[in-house]
């Protein structure tokens, strides 16, 4: 039995992206949920399972049920960082396939920009890393970037080109938070924070939320929008702390990507548009390699000189990504919402013509959790 094409996203929405003054994280979450249900043409009380993960509320699944006024059959609150929502979709597909639930609502919101102005997290430093004061989570990614440069000759310019590509996409997205022009030179001249990473290698700090409604494929056509089917998915968890990552240049995306491709019956060359969790520029290079879009060590060359920018050989992070569109702390759900937009053909100036298959990939912790979803239009079933 395979979950390929058995469940679909029938509603999707964003809320509070950028700055959501005066709103709590849960209020932004509920606004996104309301939008996704309206998009699906559904009423709240048709929802019988929920999933969320919030920045600070450790029991956010319970808070969500309370604020929605629901008594769901299942409440998923698995926390793996920014990848959580791409895991929620997989568990949702399982619940739906087993007919343990009929409608699953997955949602997220964070007010970190207006509430704190920096990454809002419930996490502290690991016991055996705290004495050395790494910046959380930036220094962990910096160590991975340093190793990739040492091992494969990846250059500072190549890292910069990831940020430049994200900005070029953001300039085509009216909803992106930062849309000023950005050049490689701008990135290279930006302030060093934790070598080799500079300010412009880092994701934004914004508010924002997103939500999805999932149903079984058999009922997915009963909604106003064309369904976006889950074709494949997989997870890979390799560590919690960067000092415990076996190989700083190889992430769990190798495992998650292989599982997702196998379930979907697809190869990287079949993917039309790619959404990767770009918390830092190095992430994109690592995930392109680990998901099989290029060989290990060749990610730098792959992104160089506009390779993933508009007009390049692979469209990556068409909304502008966490680097230029939105990053409220756990970006994963935005990879899914943008994939849905592209597969519905509603992405405006940034639309990839004829996009039928999208890959969305979430990262959690410090390259610790990797979760891949492959989504497709009805034509791909």
């Amino acid at each position, binding site marked *: 039995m395979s979950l390929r094409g058995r469940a679909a996203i029938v509603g999707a929405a964003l809320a509070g992206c950028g700055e959501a003054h005066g709103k709590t994280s849960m209020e932004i979450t509920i606004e996104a949920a309301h939008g996704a249900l309206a998009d699906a043409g559904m009423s709240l009380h048709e929802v019988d399972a929920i999933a969320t993960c919030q920045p600070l509320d450790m029991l956010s699944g319970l808070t969500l049920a309370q604020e929605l006024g629901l008594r769901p059959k299942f409440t998923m609150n698995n926390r793996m960082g920014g990848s959580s929502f791409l895991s929620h979709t997989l568990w949702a597909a399982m619940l739906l396939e087993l007919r343990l639930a009929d409608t699953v609502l997955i949602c997220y919101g964070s007010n970190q920009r207006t509430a704190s102005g920096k990454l809002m997290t419930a996490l502290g430093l690991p016991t055996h890393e705290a004495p*050395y004061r790494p910046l959380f989570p930036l220094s962990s990614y910096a160590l991975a970037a340093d190793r990739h440069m040492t091992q494969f000759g990846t250059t500072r310019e190549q890292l910069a080109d990831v940020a430049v590509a994200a900005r070029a996409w953001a300039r085509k997205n009216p909803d992106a938070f930062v849309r000023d022009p950005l050049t490689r030179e701008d990135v290279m001249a930006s*302030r060093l924070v934790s070598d080799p990473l500079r300010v412009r290698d880092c994701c934004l700090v914004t508010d924002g939320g997103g939500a999805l409604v999932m149903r079984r494929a058999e009922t997915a056509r009963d909604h106003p929008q064309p369904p976006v089917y889950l074709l494949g998915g997989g997870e890979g968890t390799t560590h919690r702390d960067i000092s415990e990552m076996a190989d700083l240049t190889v992430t769990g995306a190798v495992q998650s990507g292989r599982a997702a491709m196998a379930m979907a019956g697809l190869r990287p060359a079949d993917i039309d548009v790619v959404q990767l969790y770009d918390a830092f520029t190095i992430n994109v290079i690592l995930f392109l390699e680990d998901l099989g879009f290029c060989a290990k060590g060749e990610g730098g060359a792959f992104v160089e000189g506009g390779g993933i920018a508009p007009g390049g050989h692979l469209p990556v992070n068409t909304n502008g990504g966490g680097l230029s569109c939105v990053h409220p702390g756990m970006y994963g759900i935005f990879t899914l919402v943008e994939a849905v937009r592209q597969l519905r053909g509603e992405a405006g100036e940034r639309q990839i013509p004829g996009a039928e298959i999208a890959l969305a990939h979430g990262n959690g912790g410090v390259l610790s959790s990797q979760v891949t979803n492959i989504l497709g239009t009805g034509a791909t079933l």
Partner: protein
Amino acid sequence: MGTAFEGPGPDAVFAARLAEGVFEIQKCDGCGTHVFHPRVICPACGGAALGWVAPTGRGTVHARTIVRRRPEKGGDYNVVLVDLEEGVRMMSRVDGIANDDITAGLRVTATIGKGADGEPAVVFRPEGAMS
């Protein structure tokens, strides 16, 4: 001998020994794998018979970053991952060398210095720089 389940946990044992000036890592009696950070069971074989051994203290910098900080707040400092000869990796800091001179492959030797809050912490110096 007993198992790791008896008495204080491995993190507490590690910290107590470090406070006495002793840096030890674990070694699995079952499969011989060296283990750091301190754990209850061996991640290689799942066995609970982890004993304590003194590492040689020699290692190699695997990756490094320099955290940039304004001089009035204490200035820049380095954070490294070091591979010990025993095959385990740990986060640490290299003292006694300019931050910019620390690169992957630098040979280093462990000593016990101070962590962020003045607590005892394993830090490294370039090999041969020990006095």
